């Protein structure tokens, strides 16, 4: 088969089937990282762990992009404070679950209650934060939310609230040190007493652990993968929810608000209410997703919620294309696997196979050497451990410029689903009448 006909075949197979497209994407990313692992000489445990990490980040960023797509893609609400709402979700959950006796103390509530509480708090705070700006133009909302998210982060970091007592209730954010969170809840599937330091496996746990042990796969990795599977179920649910919303009369109003708020209002829709509801719902989802993100790590700290975090989600959304839930997942997965995780793997592969010495101290130094047509200093600089985040940012910039030039609507942005809960063809109408 020539490449031309292969491409036609691939496009035909993937063309109108989003689920096939997503599966193919997952396989491609999985294949790439399996290859990285082979090149780097990983054992089976290391390979499976690499895949777990990439799948985990992809699922998280896909979900975050879906939530942001609800606000920005569907309704045109420019939320530059996503990181702040994520922080509110995680910290509310953390403070509600922390034992009363812990330092800093919390409320000692069970995890499910705390998660519901955190979703409500994030949603309400989101609605209130948007209230003053929502009647104004999109750029005002952006300014208000980015300021809000920094206020949240700095408040969480402030020593004054690290361990405090307000109205007789003792609690705390842990300040700059951060806050410990409950242990990974998925452990309950595998252990009889998941809270214990050296817990005993239950029947399922024992069966699985003994099955994978000869392959050299550790217990923590089994738990990690179980968590990823649970995340993928959440992702599926959220994807389904977003498609439902997009096709509903509610989604139809959002679509028209995004295009022309005045016309929407002239048709009798209270656009302010629609916008506040959408903003609050999107923020609540971001809070929940951030909880899912941090629960696997067991702690949260303010530096995880810098504005760059919001920027990452926007990039993910732009890559996939705003407006399409499938695009959000594609964008989230591509961002997490190629742009976020990619640079450090490339660094490791390069470092493994090229012996580079005398790396310059700064990027400027590395670039200056380009004048002499010598790229080794730049390569050497790029593969240092410390310069990964600089490299990542540079890569993000290049991708952004490329996207704006070539695909301003993102990779799948042109795919616009019809906002209706039923098929709209005249034939469908007639068939209905004949029922």
């Amino acid at each position, binding site marked *: 088969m020539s490449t031309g006909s292969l491409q036609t075949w691939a496009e035909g197979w993937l063309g109108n089937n989003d689920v096939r497209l997503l599966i193919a994407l997952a396989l491609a990313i999985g294949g790439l990282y399996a290859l990285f692992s082979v090149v780097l000489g990983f054992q089976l445990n290391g390979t499976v762990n690499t895949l777990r990490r990439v799948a985990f980040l992809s699922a998280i960023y896909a979900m975050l992009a879906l939530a942001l797509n609800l606000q920005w893609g569907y309704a045109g609400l420019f939320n530059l404070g996503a990181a702040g709402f994520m922080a509110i979700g995680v910290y509310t959950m953390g403070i509600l679950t922390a034992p009363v006796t812990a330092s800093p103390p919390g409320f000692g509530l069970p995890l499910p209650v705390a998660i519901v509480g955190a979703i409500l708090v994030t949603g309400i705070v989101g609605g209130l934060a948007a209230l003053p700006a929502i009647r104004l133009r999109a750029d005002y909302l952006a300014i208000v939310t980015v300021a809000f998210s920094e206020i949240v982060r700095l408040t969480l970091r402030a020593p004054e609230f690290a361990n405090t007592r307000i109205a007789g209730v003792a609690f705390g954010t842990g300040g700059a040190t951060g806050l410990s969170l409950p242990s990974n809840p998925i452990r309950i599937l595998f252990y009889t007493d998941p809270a214990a330091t050296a817990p005993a496996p239950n029947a399922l746990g024992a069966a699985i652990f003994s099955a994978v042990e000869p392959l050299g796969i550790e217990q923590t990795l089994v738990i990690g993968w179980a968590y990823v599977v649970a995340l993928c179920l959440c992702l599926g649910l959220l994807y389904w929810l977003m498609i439902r919303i997009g096709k509903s009369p509610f989604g139809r109003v959002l679509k028209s608000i995004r295009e022309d708020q005045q*016309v929407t209002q002239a048709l009798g829709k209270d656009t302010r209410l629609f916008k506040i509801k959408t903003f609050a719902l999107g923020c609540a989802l971001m809070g929940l997703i951030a909880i899912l993100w941090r629960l696997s790590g067991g702690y949260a700290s303010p530096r995880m919620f810098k504005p760059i975090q919001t920027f990452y989600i926007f990039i993910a959304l732009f890559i996939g294309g705003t407006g399409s839930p499938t695009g959000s997942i594609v964008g989230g997965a591509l961002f997490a696997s190629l742009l976020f995780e990619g640079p450090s793997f490339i660094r490791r592969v390069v470092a493994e196979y090229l012996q580079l010495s005398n790396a310059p101290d700064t990027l400027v130094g590395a670039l200056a050497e380009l004048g002499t047509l010598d790229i080794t200093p730049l390569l050497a600089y790029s593969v240092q451990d410390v310069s990964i985040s600089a490299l990542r940012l540079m890569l993000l910039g290049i991708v952004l410029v490329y996207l704006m030039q070539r695909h301003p609507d993102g990779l799948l942005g042109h795919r616009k689903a019809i906002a209706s809960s039923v098929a709209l063809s005249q034939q469908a109408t007639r068939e209905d009448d004949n029922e």
Partner: protein
Amino acid sequence: MSKNAHSARNDQTQKGQQEQILKVENLRKTFGGITAVADVSFHVEKGSITGLIGPNGAGKSTTFDLITGVQRPDGGEVEFNDTEITGYRSDQVANQGLVRTFQIARELSEMTVLENLMLAPQNQAGEAVWRAVLPRARTQVVEQEKELREQAWEMLELFEIEHVAHESAGNLSGGQRKLLEMARVLMTDPEMVLLDEPLAGVNPTLEEKLIDRLHTLKEQGYTFLFVEHDMDVIMNNCDTVIVMHQGSVLTEGQPDAVKNNDKVLDAYLGEEVKI
């Protein structure tokens, strides 16, 4: 039906006593130094087709904006169906049954023609997000969507744009966009419609048909206030004509009386007019 037949019938309807559906009193609006609407008062009879004419810049579109809450008036009152609606937001005005089209068609260009129409009906069950999502409640939403779909197709046929039903509204021609806007406001099931130059850019054959539709809809009880620059159309189809000039009402009356008013002629010729 010829235009003359219309005017003959209009003469008959005017003999009956009619109630006022829209009352505008002393409406004012200034933009910086420009007084767009100086002091506008008029009444519109229920079930009538009322024309609103005047030279460019007379303040007709701004008056529409003030009535429908798109802009806030600096002074004056608007009453619709005996409810004072001055200062209402435009969605509240629309929910009272008073809707408007825009002079420059404002189609939702990324949405299809059908989506544009399905958007318009008020108080849809599926506009509550939980009902749109939860399986039980959603059956009700789907039922309603099927009804709306049927209405939308009827409306498309009425305006003869069914062949572009699935097209993005942004791809329509100028005249088709005007038709879409009219169809869309009618989908809201209003009592009264303010039409801002609905015939501009519409071809003569279709114009004839549209005017016929207006009369059919009028018979069904709708009220229309419409801005139009073509004097023949106004004179042959309106029950009452209101003439605006430099932000004020110059005169008001039956088409024949207005036509023979010297002040109206002067206003259109750009001469000094004493109001």
